């Protein structure tokens, strides 16, 4: 029974990534160079809908706050994000879409995955020598959130769960308003 959930969710997510065109690096690169933003619109809409449902569900008491899992904030998140953005722009793949793309017969994605396995291994090897640097100092108390998730491990910066619904709605509005082609 515990195995059914990750299998169903994984199948759905992999299917969806391919369906929305995210396993095609052409779409990712055209999104990043602001030539065709349909994927950005889909991602922002997805985040917005999920946030409205999540915080709406928390307010209605139908979502279990213990399911919430907030990652810590530290400067390494920003730097790591910038590194990911670098490879994202070059390849047109991120970890999940690269794995999916390799399975659809994209050989460049297979090389991306192999490079990723080695990159993750090298990170594991160097982590010991960088873990005590300022890069990993907790910011805003660590697992900080803008809206109250009701999760006991999370640090809430602003009271009220309605804020999550409002920000989610804003994401939906931006997704709808974003022009298909900017540059």
């Amino acid at each position: 029974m515990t195995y059914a959930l990750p299998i169903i969710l994984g199948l759905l997510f992999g299917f969806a990534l391919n369906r929305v065109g995210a396993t095609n690096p052409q779409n990712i690169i055209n999104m990043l160079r602001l030539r065709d933003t349909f994927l950005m619109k889909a991602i922002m809409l997805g985040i917005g809908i999920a946030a409205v449902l999540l915080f709406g569900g928390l307010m209605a008491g139908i979502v279990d706050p213990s399911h919430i899992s907030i990652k810590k904030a530290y400067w390494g998140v920003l730097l790591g994000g910038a590194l990911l953005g670098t490879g994202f722009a070059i390849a047109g793949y991120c970890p999940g879409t690269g794995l999916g793309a390799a399975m659809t017969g994209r050989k460049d994605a297979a090389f991306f995955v192999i490079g990723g396995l080695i990159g993750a291994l090298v990170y594991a090897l160097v982590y010991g020598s960088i873990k005590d640097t300022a890069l990993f100092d907790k910011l805003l108390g660590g697992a900080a959130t803008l809206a109250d998730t009701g999760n006991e491990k999370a640090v809430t910066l602003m009271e009220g769960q309605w804020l999550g619904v409002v920000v989610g709605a804003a994401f939906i509005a931006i997704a709808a308003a974003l022009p298909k082609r900017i540059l």
Partner: protein
Amino acid sequence: MPKTLPWLGGGILLGAIFFLSVFLIKPIGVSTEFVIADGIIWNAVNPDIVVADEASKSGYSSPNAYLNSSDGKMAKAIEEPVSYGMLFVVSLMVGAFLSSLLKGDKPEGLQKSMPEVWAARFGENKIKRYTATFIAGFIVLFGARMAGGCTSGHMMSGIMQMSVSGFMFAAGAFAVGIPLAIILFNKKQNTE
């Protein structure tokens, strides 16, 4: 069914899946499993890299500081590989494969090696493209591990939960990704 969903349908589908994950159990994440896969191979070559340890909360520990972090959570996933995260990621791969068989996005000809936008800018040399994606993969996973998550875990799941780290991650990724993609692919190219 169309080959690629329009943004509205695609966004609704993604939103439903991300919400469903946290509603049913926990948010989606992918990049940790790259470390777990490495660890499984590493542990097969050198069995001392993950050891049973009663003093550790997870029951396992590792001489490697990273695998040992968070009370040996990753060490445990290496020793017991049929984990939630690994099943999820393997299923993700199968799901993408099935979709491509069922009229989803599937590369043809040169697309199996590189997208058109790459070929138009850098030529059709496959070795060049493979070298570039290999290096990009290295940078992406190194960065994702430093950040503690990737596009799915930080950006989508994180922002969905109004997590500050999710917004930070997205800011870093797009602040570099957008200008770099413009510099790399908008130059010297026929756009129409």
